[in-house]
């Protein structure tokens, strides 16, 4: 382990890593400018073929939930001398695993910053983030997080938190009683969503609120009511379609502690989905949590949103078995937003930020909501520990309404163009996390946004 001292910062550089030339000074300047006390950056990884360009590992902005899963910050990190001293001193830290070191330093640091520059070079074998389950267990103990830490392969640790309370959850299902073919059988979608949650969920304190359009067929209404049984409240809605307003109205009709926004074209996969989503709210600064959404055929519909620079669902259409770049689909992590097709949020917080914005009747109200939460200091989490089917048609042409896009940009242009959980050097207009190299620019990128999400 080499320890690099620069401008009040201590850098931990393992033997297998080489700090790039001039990076000490660059990091010191960056830390001084951003007032960061914990700095990490990107890395290059050489392969055995000397003619091959090195692999680029680009890292997202500060994501504490993801750091619990694996050492996504890389093997080389810098921290101020005060933080290093508080975490046990440079000598003690240098003897730890990279994951343990990052966790301990990050706990003591106040301002964590990612420097979007290549900080170090290492062998390709160190390109994937490592994980240390013992370090994560100790980290959870230090932070008072109760739960079980499981090793997922050799590359990630899954932290299943334990719920310490059993709050009431209101499941809000806006619908117009649509019926569709799901797995070869015709069904009323809302009835199926409610019935599956009631039948499968292991969480006892659920209540359901269905907001029914005035043109909901009577037979569909009957089926929905039968699916919800005594736990269901139906609200008639007779205005022109406005998903956001329907959800807001439902939220006003409950005093439950949490709201589970659930589209009618969903069906839960994980029986413990509610417990899993709720468990993240043990952290007081979490505002919204969403599970993995899967298409009918089991491929990924969304693993959280990212703005690249238009909103996309991570790994849409890819197999649910893939780990994603740097195993990003294996661990819970912060995202800019999640689809409101299945997302949990505290009711009081929902009211505090004004609910869903009715200026977005169909699309982007979930993005707007998540960004409002960020504005009041709350994080949005995507988790792979829970999954839900979302039977959104893959062949549906996404409808981008210019007025919606203009309103979204008027409010959040700065956040759309500077996604903290993205990276400026990513290949744009892609669903996947992929570095942008001139030789690899795709036609998609050249022609611009062909199919940005329409999130409902």
């Amino acid at each position, binding site marked *: 382990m080499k320890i690099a001292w620069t401008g009040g910062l201590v850098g931990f550089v393992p033997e297998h890593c080489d700090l790039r030339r001039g990076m000490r000074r660059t990091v010191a300047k960056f830390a001084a400018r951003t007032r960061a006390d914990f700095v990490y950056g990107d890395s290059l990884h050489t392969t055995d073929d000397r003619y091959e360009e090195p692999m680029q590992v680009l890292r997202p902005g500060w994501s504490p939930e993801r750091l619990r899963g694996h050492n996504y910050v890389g093997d080389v990190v810098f921290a101020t001398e005060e933080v290093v001293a508080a975490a046990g001193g440079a000598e003690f830290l240098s003897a730890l695993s990279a994951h343990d070191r990052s966790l301990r330093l990050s706990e003591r640091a106040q301002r964590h910053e990612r420097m979007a520059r290549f900080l170090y070079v290492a062998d390709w074998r160190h390109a994937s983030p490592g994980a240390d389950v013992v370090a994560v267990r100790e980290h959870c103990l230090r932070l008072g997080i109760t739960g079980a830490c499981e090793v997922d392969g050799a590359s990630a640790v899954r932290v299943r938190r334990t719920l310490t309370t059993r709050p009431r959850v209101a499941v809000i299902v806006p619908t117009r009683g649509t019926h569709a073919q799901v797995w070869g059988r015709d069904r009323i979608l809302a009835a199926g969503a409610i019935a599956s949650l009631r039948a499968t969920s292991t969480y006892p304190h659920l209540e359901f609120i269905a907001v029914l359009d005035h043109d909901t067929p009577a037979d569909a209404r009957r089926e929905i009511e039968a699916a919800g049984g*005594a736990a269901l409240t139906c609200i008639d809605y007779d205005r022109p379609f406005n998903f956001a307003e329907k959800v807001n109205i439902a939220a006003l009709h409950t005093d439950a502690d949490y709201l589970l926004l659930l589209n009618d074209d969903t069906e839960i996969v994980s029986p413990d989905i509610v417990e899993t989503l709720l468990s993240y709210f043990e952290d007081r600064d979490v505002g919204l949590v969403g599970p993995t959404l899967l298409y009918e055929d089991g491929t990924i519909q969304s693993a959280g949103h990212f703005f690249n620079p238009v909103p996309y669902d991570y790994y849409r259409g890819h197999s649910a078995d893939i780990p994603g770049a740097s195993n990003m689909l294996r661990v819970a992590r912060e995202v800019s937003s999640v689809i409101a097709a299945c997302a949990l949020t505290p009711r009081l917080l929902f009211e505090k930020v004004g609910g869903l914005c009715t200026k977005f009747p169909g699309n982007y109200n979930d993005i707007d909501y998540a960004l409002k939460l960020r504005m009041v200091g709350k994080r949005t989490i995507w988790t792979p520990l829970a999954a839900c089917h979302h039977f959104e048609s893959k062949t549906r042409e996404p409808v981008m309404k210019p007025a919606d896009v203009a309103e979204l940009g008027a409010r959040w*242009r700065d956040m759309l163009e500077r996604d903290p959980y993205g990276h400026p050097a990513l290949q744009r207009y892609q669903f996947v996390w992929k570095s942008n190299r001139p030789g690899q620019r795709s036609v998609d990128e050249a022609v611009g946004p062909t199919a940005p999400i329409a999130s409902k």
Partner: protein
Amino acid sequence: MPTRRTGCGQRVAAVACLGKRVGTETKSNFIGNDVVDDRLVGPRIEVVDELGSLVTEEASVLETSGALHAAKSSGSRLAHMGLRRSEIDARLAELAAVDARLADRAKANAARYRAEHGISDEPYAFPTYRSAEEKKVWVHKWWVWPLRFFYRHLPIGIRSRIKRIAT
């Protein structure tokens, strides 16, 4: 655990569109206390006083839709919360006001960002990657062909270095 499912049989009103009325034919209701709850142990019956809180002005004919133990839906929560239709509209307006305040803050931040980056005020549209498009067009111009031919026939080591420098 508090349960609020009392199945009071009260119609839950359409909360939007004050001018419109909700037809009774759209839903039949359950009258009486809901004593069946297959998800909860020990259901509790609550007596709700303010039964008329959310009923539309139009008189509704409440009908049972079968046996009393098979509740179709319950408006008890609404009644319990004592929300009137006008109150719901008022609370919706409150939500909209909060949203507008946050939107103003967000718009101020976005305006500052635009000013910092010299971006015009015209309505936002999702951007296209013009620079990449232009590069592709430029690379495929006929007068670049000899250069490309020359580059392709360089030894791989030199090509690799040129690529690295270009990257």
